[in-house]
C-alpha cells in the first residue's frame, strides 16, 4: 500500500460527501483525516483527533476557518493547525476542490 507520508494526492470523491458547514472523517491509509467544508465553500483538512484528548474534530462546530472540538471546546485554526497552546496543534493537509471532487494532498502538511 502506498505510503501516506510520500508526497502525492488522493481523491476523496464528491465534496457533497462532507455535509455543508460541517466536517467529515476519512480514513486515509490508516490515518484519520478530518475534511471540513465551510458554508462559503472553503475546505480544510486536518488530523481528525484532537491533541488534547483525542476528541473527533470532524464532529466539531466549524466557522471562519476555526473548529471547536466537541469534547472540551478547544479551538483550532484549520488552516495553520494552531491550537490554544503551542504544544496543542494540528497536522494540516493541503486540500482543494476540483470539478466538485475533493483532492487531498499528502505531502508533509505543515504542523504549526
Amino acid at each position, binding site marked *: 500500500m502506498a505510503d*501516506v507520508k510520500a508526497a502525492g494526492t488522493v481523491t476523496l470523491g464528491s465534496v457533497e460527501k462532507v455535509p455543508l458547514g460541517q466536517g467529515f472523517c*476519512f480514513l486515509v*491509509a490508516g490515518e484519520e483525516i478530518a475534511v471540513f467544508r465551510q458554508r462559503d465553500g472553503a475546505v480544510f483538512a486536518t488530523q481528525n483527533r484532537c491533541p488534547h484528548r483525542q476528541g473527533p474534530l470532524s464532529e466539531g462546530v466549524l*466557522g471562519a476557518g476555526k473548529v471547536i472540538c466537541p469534547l472540551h471546546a478547544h*479551538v483550532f485554526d484549520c488552516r495553520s493547525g494552531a491550537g490554544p497552546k503551542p504544544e496543542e496543534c494540528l497536522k494540516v493537509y493541503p486540500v482543494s476542490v476540483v470539478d466538485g471532487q475533493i483532492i487531498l494532498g499528502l505531502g508533509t502538511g505543515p504542523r504549526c
Partner: protein
Amino acid sequence: MIKPNRKKLVVVGNGMAGARVVEEIFKRAPGLFDVTMFGAEPYGNYNRILLSNVLNRTQEPTEIFINPLAWYRDNGVTLHAGVKAVRIDRERRVVVGRPLKRDAVPYAATDAGQEEKTVEEPYDHVIIATGSRPFVPPMEGFGGPGTFLFRTIDDCERIADFAKSCRKAAVIGGGLLGLEAARGLLTHGVEVTVLEAAPQLMIAQLDPESGQMLKGTMEGMGVKVFCEKITTHIVREEGRITHLLMKDGSRIDTDMVVVSAGIRPITEIAAASALTVNKAIVVDDQMRTSDPSVFALGECVEHRGKIYGLVDPIWEQAGVLADVVTGKNPQAAYLGSKLGTKLKVMGVELASMGETKPASPDDEIVVYREPRKGVYKKLIIRNETLAGAILLGEIETAGTLLQIFLGGTKVPERRADLLFGSPSGVSLLKVSDLPDNAQICNCNGVSKKQVVESIQAGCTSVAKVGACTKAGTGCQSCKGLVAQLIESYAGGVASDPSEHWYVPGVALEKSQLVAELRNRGIKSVSEVFRQLADGKEHAGSKIGLASLLKALWPDEYEDERDARFINDRVHANIQKDGTFSVVPRIYGGVTSPAELRRIAEVAEKYNVPMVKITGGQRLDLLGVKKEDLPGIWKDLGIPSGHAYTKAFRTCKSCVGTDFCRYGVGDSIALAQKIERRFQGVESPHKMKLATAGCPRNCSEAYVKDLGAVAIEGGKWEIYLGGAAGGSVRKGDLLVTVDTHDEVLKYMGRFMQYYREHGKYLERSYHFLERIGIETLKKILVEDSLGICARLDADIQKAVDAYKDPWKEAELPKYPRQFSGPELANVLEVAENNG
C-alpha cells in the same frame, strides 16, 4: 545556545518564585543573561496555589501550568527538570546538580540524587528559590503506604489514586491547606476527618469565634472536625492503615492519612554551600545571601527575621531582585510585606488580613455576626487605621479593606461601610490616591502602576486591562478596583460592550439582537452572520444563535444542522472516545418486561459495551458507534429520552400510592403524564423533573428543576428551581394544587416563562434566583401581568410540535448524518510532480 559574552545566571528551584523572578529579569533586560534552571520536579512551572483545584478535580493538572516546557524553549532557558541542585561550589563557581529518580519525592531532605549522573553549571549569579516542604509533626508510623503530604502535582495524583481504595481519610492539620485537602478528598467519595492540634481551625487567619463558625460550616458539609487532637500513632494491620491513636487516648478509624501541618523552608543547598542560614536562608533588603553573587527569594528565605508562606510577598521580592541583579536599580529594596489574603475554603469565602486579636485595650473592635448564615465580620482599628480584619461567609468589601490595610489609609467615619460597603455606592477609597506600587490584583501580582499604564495605552474596559496585565483574571475579586481605576484615569469605563453581547460573534445585546432578528425576519444562523456580522461567521456563536432563533420562530426557523452541537445533530451524547450513548425514554421510570427484553436484544445485537442504570431512572446503552445509532433506534422502537440536549429530560417518580404504605398521591401516574406531555420541549438548559408520593421525597422532587410532592389531603406542592448537581438547592414552593391537571398547567406555564426569559444555558436554579419566587408567584399564579393564558397557549404549541428525533433513523436530515469515517481508496495516490 550559550553566547560567551552573556553573563550566566543559574536559578535553583523552578516554582512560583524561581519562574517569576526569571520573567521579571527578562522584562528588564532580555539579552543580559544565559539562564539555566534546576527544578527538582520533572515539570515546567505550575501555579501551586491551584493544586487544591486539581485535587478536587475542578481543574486538570495541565490547566494550572504558568510556564509549560515550551516557555523555556521559547525563551532560551535551559531547564534541568527533575534535577536537584545539591551544592554551590563557590570556589569553582559552578552549581552541582543530580537527577532524581522519576518517582522520587522532590522535596525529600535525604534524597541527594543519582551521583553518577551529576551535572555542573557555571555561574556568574545564582538565585535560590527552593521553597519549602511540608512539616510532619512527630508521630509513629508516618511514611509508607497510605500516608501522604500535599505539596506537588504528583502528591495530588498519589492522594487521588489511593483514595479510590478507601472509605475513610484523616487529615492532620486544620489550617488552610489541611482544609483544602479535606475538601479535595470529599470529592473522591471518602469520609473525611480533620484533626487539629490547636483549639480552633485556621489559627493563622481566624479568631476563635470565626474558627468555631467555620467548623460548623465544615461539619454541615459532612467533614468531621476535631480540635485539640494530637496524633501520636498511625496504626496498621497487615500493611493497611486501620486507625490513628491520639495523645488523649482516643482513636480515629481511617484508611489513609494526609499530613498538612505547616511548612519548613528548604535550606540544604544553602547550608551545604556555607551560606548563612537561620530559620531559613538569610537575605538582606536586596535579596542577597551572605555571598553577594548568590540571591534567594520565596518561601526559603528569612528577611528581617520573617518567613512568608504566601505568594504575595514573592511578587515584590522578585521585582526587587530583578532590579538589583540586572543593574536596573541596584538600590531597590524589599522592606517586608503585610499579609492579607482572600481565600475560598471548601467553597466558603474568607478574607483575613493583619492581626486577628486586639493588642491593647485602646484597639477598637467592630464585629458583625449572623451565625445562621455563617457570616462573621470583624475589624481591629488602631489609630484610625486598620490593624486587622476577618471576613467570613460574605466578603464583598474585602478588596477595599485590603487596600486600606496595605496602604495604611485612614478608615472612614462610618465603620459599617467597611463591613457592608457604602450605601450611596460611593467608593470608600479613592483608588487615585493609592500609591503606584499598591497591588491591585493579588492573584497575579499586578500593581496599580501597571494597570494605569495599560489604561493609558488604551485598555479602557475591565476585560482589556485583564488581557494586557492579567489583572482580574484570577479570583476576579479585584475587578471592581480595576473599573474604578479606569474611571479615574480614562474618565469612565468604556464598559466593554462585548461583555453584554448575547454571543461573541455578533455585536448586539440580547434585546437588540432579538429586535433585529424580528425586524429583519432573519430565520437562519448563516443569515444572522450575513446581515448582522459583516458576513463573518463565528463558530463559537452558532449554537447560541440557533437556540435563540428556534425560540423566536418555532415553526419557521430554518434549521441548519451545522449550527448544532454534535449531540443535537445525531440525537445522542458524545463520549470521551467519540462513541455515543443511547438513553431510550422510560416514562416515569416505569418499564415492562417486553421493553426490557428489546433493550437487552439490542444491546447484544450491537455489542453495546455497557448497559447502565442512570441516575435518571432509566437505562443507558453506552459506547455506541455513530453508524449504529439509526439501527438501534429502529430496533428499540422506543422514543428518544433526550438525554443529550437542552430540553425536558425526564420525570422520575417514586412508587407512590401504587405500592408504598406512606403514599398519599399517585406519583407514578403524574410522572408519566408529565413526561408524555413535555417530552422534547426545548429550553435554555436541561429540565429534570420528579414527582414524589409524599414528603419523604424518595424521588428527590425537592431538588429538581420542577418537582411535585404529594401532601396529606390529596394535594400537590409544586417546587421550582431545585438542584442537586454541581450546586445543591432546595426548590421554592410555587403553589399547592389539588389535581394532576393543575400540576401540568403550572409546570407548563413556568416552562414557557423560563423558555422566554431564561438566558442561554441558565439552569432553572439560577433563573429562579435571578427572578425570585415571589415575583414568579405573582406572574404565574396571580397573573399580575395578564400573560398566563398566552403562556399556556404557547407551551401547548411547543407540546404539539413534538417529534421524536429518533424518527430520523428512517429519514436522515442530510446525507451522511450517521456515517462513520470513510475509508479512502489510497490506491489512487498519484505522484505529485509539482
